[in-house]
């Protein structure tokens, strides 16, 4: 079952959704470069109607860590 967060990553990075899991990170996913990091921030804010702080953005070094940030913002269903 695909989560919303995985759909956003798949859409922005252009990577099939089944290749995306909590351990997906810039280190193991060449598509997640610094340009896409900028696009991910925009897409996550749009998809979840939130505003991320710079500190949160810097901490988001894997899909699991992004999920953690979203949970702290009260978004359970990610």
């Amino acid at each position, binding site marked *: 079952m695909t989560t919303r967060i995985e759909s956003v990553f798949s859409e922005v990075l*252009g990577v099939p959704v089944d290749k995306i899991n909590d351990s997906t990170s810039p280190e193991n996913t060449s598509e997640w470069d*610094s*340009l896409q990091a900028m696009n991910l*921030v*925009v897409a996550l804010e749009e998809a979840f109607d939130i505003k*991320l702080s710079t500190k949160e*953005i*810097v901490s988001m070094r894997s899909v699991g860590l992004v999920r953690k940030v979203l949970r702290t913002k009260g978004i359970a269903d990610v």
Partner: protein
Amino acid sequence: MSSEAAQPGTPPMDPKRARALWREWTANMETGAATPALRIGIAATFTANPLVPYLGGHLLEAGVQPAIQLGPYHQLFQVCLDHRSHFPGGVDVIVLLWRIEDLMTEEVSAFLHGDPEALGRALGRLSSFGQAVAALRSAFAGTIIVNLPPFPSTLPAHALELSNPGNLGAFHRTITSALVEQLSRIEGVRLLDLDALQRHHGVAGSFDARQWYLYHQPFSDRFLFETGALLGRMIATLRRAPRKCIVLDCDNTLWGGVVGEDGVGGLQIGEDFPGWAYRDFQKLLLRWRQQGILLAIASKNNEADVWEVFEKHSGMALKREHISAWQINWEPKAENIPKIAKALNIGTDSLVFIDDNPMEIDYMRAARPEVHSVLMPEEPADILPAMRVLAAFDRLEITKEDRGRAEMMRAEQQREAALSHLSKEDFLRDLALTVELFPAPPEELDRIAQLINKTNQFNLSTIRRSVDEVRVLAAAPLHRVYGLRVADKFGDYGLTGVAIIERSPAKQRWTIDTLLLSCRVLGRQVETAFLAGLAADALEDGAHELFASFVPSAKNAPAASFLPDHGFTVAEGHAWRAALTSIPPGPPYINLLRPHCETISA
């Protein structure tokens, strides 16, 4: 902002769709399944990466398939002075993007601290930038685009400071107008007005402080998306023939109400609401007409009723003499539209159709997809805001021929009236045609490129070129770029013919790369005089023979028999050749002038 190429049924452009289009296209380029038609290099004083998919997406939607390279971060001067090493493989367009905060960091900071000489130093810095752009111009043949700077957004100062109102504003205005003044002296540099774009979207909404501090990327996603749209529109316009004529419905389009039911007195047009909304639309039409767009009418009405409104209603800004062609009857508009195009001697693909009836619009889109059909808003207050942003009439230069086009069409109608009384031979003699052939001077190259890009019918090779490419040929030793000016007793048609010649190194052979005539001057044997003039030049140059190609296109049938009719025989493939001695002389009733022939040699 509407893109002209957007077809009904395609989803509206948004950032997500632009990114998806761009990703799909770049994947195809990487696998070799697609080849770019246009190469663009971007150099910026800030991180411009997120702009790339937005520019790319908008261009793809407009039918231009680009490759986009980013130059190194904050190295505008280096790129200007050595574009080849920064854009390996070469590019057709170079875009230079800069901000006041990045290019004159020290100067603007000192200015805010009250240094009275800071603005002068900033102008000095700007002038160095102008010199770098001039250096790029002389080394790079393609299109150069430079932005007008947006209002500074990353300084320790704010536009709305109460203590010193207008301070930063004065700096920004001074720098902006100095830039316009400097770049206008460099040929063929286009201005991307990010200042106006930012005014449209708001300074606050154009800035994203988080992206700035994290990535040195100062702009909001929305502003980058709109920048991509505007830049894409500019670049697409450089490669596209502009629309030439608007075909208008009358009832509830030119005025409020239905003349057949409400009568002339019952129509809404004039000084009061809602009539003055329609009047403002008419004023917009008149401004377009002044820029060379022809106005025509396709209306289901009694013709006499429509002209009665034009002649008797005091609220009309449009007059009957502004209308270049009309079909006012009860036939389907899709059948009337080709008649209008024919009367104006233009293709139906250069028409824009405006109507308030969604069924007419749908029907036209289905029957005549090449016509750009636009639905008139029902809400009168929406008319002007919706219509003035139509991208269909985008053009980057308005030439004097454009401005005069509507007037020339009126003279054409008089010429045709004269023709109906005479035999064709008598008519041509009576016209007192003068044809002037001359090597194109720099100030005519915009007009020449415009003809190269829009002439479809009498065009031997239909090779399209940007003005920058034409400029290079005009300066090349073995090439000649010619313009042709035509006039007769009814008036001046202006610059209406272009030829590009390539001479063989020993000059014994001239090859006609491009030969075209505007359809406005066809049917008068001007082409025979044109060729005779070129042959005379070739002879003086020491040449013996002419080569030319006829490359058939969907529309250039009118030029198909030109070469065999004028002494050429088939050489091979599309190529034809003729000895200079077999080229026929110009017609006796055309006065051929070659004012340059004593002044050029070698």
